[in-house]
């Protein structure tokens, strides 16, 4: 049986400047610290049904701080 593919998002906190666009677009995928700097929730795995929000969060980040990758399920990256 083949491994299934999941989407994973990653956020570079060095690039994040706290615009908070991602948090508004995909509130369940991102969290903010006390300074408004974002990070991904959990390991960044995008739950089924939230793929579009994840893509939009990437496409609206003014600092190009978020990336999205397809990874085999269970793989760490």
């Amino acid at each position, binding site marked *: 049986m083949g491994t299934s593919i999941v989407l994973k998002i990653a956020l570079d906190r060095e690039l994040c400047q706290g615009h908070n666009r991602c*948090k*508004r677009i995909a509130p369940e995928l991102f969290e*903010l610290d*006390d*300074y408004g700097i974002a990070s991904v929730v959990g390991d960044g795995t995008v739950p089924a049904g939230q793929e579009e929000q994840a893509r939009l969060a990437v496409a*609206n980040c*003014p600092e190009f701080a978020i990336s999205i990758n397809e990874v085999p399920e269970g793989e760490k990256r």
Partner: protein
Amino acid sequence: MSARPPVTDWLTDFDHQSPQWIADPFPIWDKIRASACPIAHTDRYQGVYLPTRYQDVRDIAYDPEHFSSRRVVIREEYPLDAKAPPITSDPPEHRPARMVLLPAFTPKVIDKLEGHTRALCDELIDSILARHAAGEPIDAAVDYAQHIPVRVIAHMMGLPSDTGDLFREWIHLTLVAGITDPQALVRGFSEMTHYLKDVVAERRANPGEDLVSYLLQAKFDDHEFDDEHVIGTLRLLLIAGIDTTWSGLGSSLWHLATHADDRRRLVAQPDLMPTAIEEFLRAYSPVTMARVIKEDTELNGCPMKAGHGVLLSFPAANRDPEMFPDADKVLIDRKENRHAAFGLGIHRCIGSNLARMEMTVGVEQWLRRIPEFTLDKDRPMTWSIGTVRGPRLLPVRIGA
């Protein structure tokens, strides 16, 4: 204002205070962007460059080594070098001054101000509708947009809401009259500083839950901030937070007054509000910042000389077709919109969540209660002069 020599060539002699620029800057930027050198220059204002491509604006914003924030406004003269940290700070002073402010402007904090903002919008609309019923003419900038940010910031600082009128007077002196009249600038500046000194002294003695008290107690790493620093930061919050948001809200209402299709669509589909607000921010970005070149450098093949200024035009970057498909069209359902209206890099607007909230609530309440309105062409409509762009007179006719 004295007569300005007319612009001879937009590539080599631009003037961001010329009537043509003020009325409609977009074709000027498009022309410069499409030319062989998309970074224009002018000998006016002691020498200034104007990048128009998104990439060039971004590269400058990311390079505080060469492009200093010591001066963030382009003027004819610089009668005072006022510090307003962190907007006028470069690394390494910039970081602590910024970090200490960030917690006061996160969504968690700003969301709590939404109810207050909505109530004050409603109060303004009550008065507008009463005056409209009495047959008086209505101006969406003068009677509405300009009052919202001053009252919200007064509320945040724990000051009575009519303090907002004082703030508006200082903003006028420093940012409008002060562009051409150095005396007005100095007067507005010193009145504002004097007032803030008293507020700071009062809150030192009697701290409360407000933003001033927060700043006086705040620390980042081992940095504490003296009164002068806090006064500078409060000055920044007034200068940077007021006419910018009022301009963004005014431009949004101008668009809706002149585009009935978008207005009706937004009334019918209020869930489009988030993308509509981001699109208004992109297409009518109010804020152009400035930088000073620290040493001779080159940007994407264009030599840039030390001592000259740079107009860091986020508004022009946001109209770059390389970055935004249909850049010249306003699409209120644009989903992919990586606009730079709040700047890029370390100087990202600290009040962006506040500005967004005020613009959203301001447009929402207006549309709920005044869904039908158009620009009144029998009265003058004017745009601001300077590096913050928005309607200053926005006469509207209410009703279908």
